[in-house]
């Protein structure tokens, strides 16, 4: 179905291992970590959530709900027409807690709160309760596609009903057990590094991150609008870089663009040379000479990390400035930044494209 409506990112709310929750700043301070686990820099939760409600909430629930509130406030959104969330592992903290209780207590005297909050859509439900929103509400939970599936859903809904304003967010949290499991398999580094040296390290494994990034989407170009969301694509198990390139070109031509129109490429490389190879090849083939940025040295890798990449793209388009810390190369300076492409991958099997344009 041909879409003739333009969709804007009207608000942002990002809590990440960098100080990103304050929308008035843009990576002014950079946080460094030396044990391969990047936890979020947290806001004061009481600013967003009533203390009585806060008491029972798990860490991820507090983070997710706060990011959603920051975003809704940023977009002056009182009542979303839909709440769509995404998470690869869901509330893994509560899941772990409940599981360990079962194992340690022999299935006795178990804490119902842990179980109740372990469902993937706990945060989605909490946002709905907080905003008294009875509208569409769903959660996508497919690994490195969760966030992109959510974006696809939102785009389809807004295509049908352009007046809709959608609150959409993705979140995942660090977890000791999962980190250990991934270290064993070489997906996460065993040797500790400083996160900012991720792309100069031994090229084996990535570092663990977490975050909650929310976006308000709508068809109105509000005064605060950050960017246009032109399109999103998921590519499952591409055979090789040329398949990725083909999909990139399809997405661009659907939006009357060519590779030469792209000003900035945001690369979701995770620091593992083998797993990053295909996307690096595709991007170099398609966009040689362009300004490449990376972001996983700032937020770590996690299923929904592409949401940090999209946040970065939105902020760049709004501020018309590129944080030095994100640059992977030094391309010719740009007089203006109009088109940004995010190419992310998760464990080298799930690739996604997010195309943004200046608002």
């Amino acid at each position, binding site marked *: 179905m041909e879409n003739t409506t333009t969709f804007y990112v009207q608000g942002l709310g990002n809590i990440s291992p960098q100080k990103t929750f304050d929308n008035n700043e843009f990576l002014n301070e950079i946080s460094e970590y030396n044990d391969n686990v990047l936890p979020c820099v947290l806001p004061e939760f009481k600013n967003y959530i009533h203390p*009585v409600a*806060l*008491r*029972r909430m798990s860490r991820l629930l507090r983070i997710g709900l706060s990011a959603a509130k920051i975003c809704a406030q940023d977009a002056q959104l009182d009542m979303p027409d839909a709440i769509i969330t995404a998470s690869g592992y869901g509330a893994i903290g509560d899941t772990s807690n409940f599981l360990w209780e079962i194992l340690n207590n022999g299935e006795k005297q178990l804490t*119902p*709160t842990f179980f*109740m909050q372990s469902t993937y859509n706990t945060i989605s439900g909490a946002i709905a309760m907080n905003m008294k929103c009875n509208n569409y509400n769903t959660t996508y939970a497919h690994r490195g596609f969760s966030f992109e599936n959510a974006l696809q859903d939102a785009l389809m809904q807004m295509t049908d009903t352009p007046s809709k304003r959608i609150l959409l967010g993705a979140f995942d949290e660090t977890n000791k057990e999962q980190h250990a499991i991934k270290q064993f398999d070489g997906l996460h580094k065993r040797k500790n590094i400083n996160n900012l040296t991720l792309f100069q390290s031994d090229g084996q494994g990535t570092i663990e991150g977490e975050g909650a990034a929310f976006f308000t989407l709508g068809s109105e170009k509000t005064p605060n609008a950050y960017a246009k969301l032109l399109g999103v694509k998921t590519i499952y198990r591409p055979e090789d870089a040329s398949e990725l390139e083909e999909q990139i070109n399809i997405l661009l031509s659907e939006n009357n663009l060519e590779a030469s129109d792209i000003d900035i490429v945001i690369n979701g490389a995770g620091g593992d040379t083998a797993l990053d190879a295909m996307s690096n090849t595709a991007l170099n083939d398609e966009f040689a000479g362009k300004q490449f940025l990376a972001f996983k040295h700032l937020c770590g890798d996690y299923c929904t990390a592409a949401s940090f990449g999209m946040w970065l793209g939105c902020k760049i388009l709004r501020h018309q400035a590129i944080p030095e810390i994100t640059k992977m190369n030094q391309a010719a300076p740009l007089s203006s930044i109009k088109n940004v492409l995010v190419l992310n991958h998760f464990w080298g099997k799930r690739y996604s494209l997010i195309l943004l344009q200046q608002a």
Partner: protein
Amino acid sequence: MDELIYNLKKEIISRLNLEGMTPEEFDENTPLFGPDFGLDSIDSLELIVMLEKNYGIKIEDPKVGRQAFQTVTTMAEFIREQQASKTA
């Protein structure tokens, strides 16, 4: 303050994460599920688990729990009754 009531208050504050509240501020006759504390059905279940863990009292029917947990005072009475009938 009665020792059982004091302990119950501490345990409830801890279990239900009532941050910032002290046993001294906690009125044992204020309804727990009323507007002051705003506890709900999940909190009731948590208190059932707490009773089993800390006092060895098992409640099978959540309705019995809601009845016993009206206030800290009624909770203490319930515990004393249950413990008395065990030793009887």
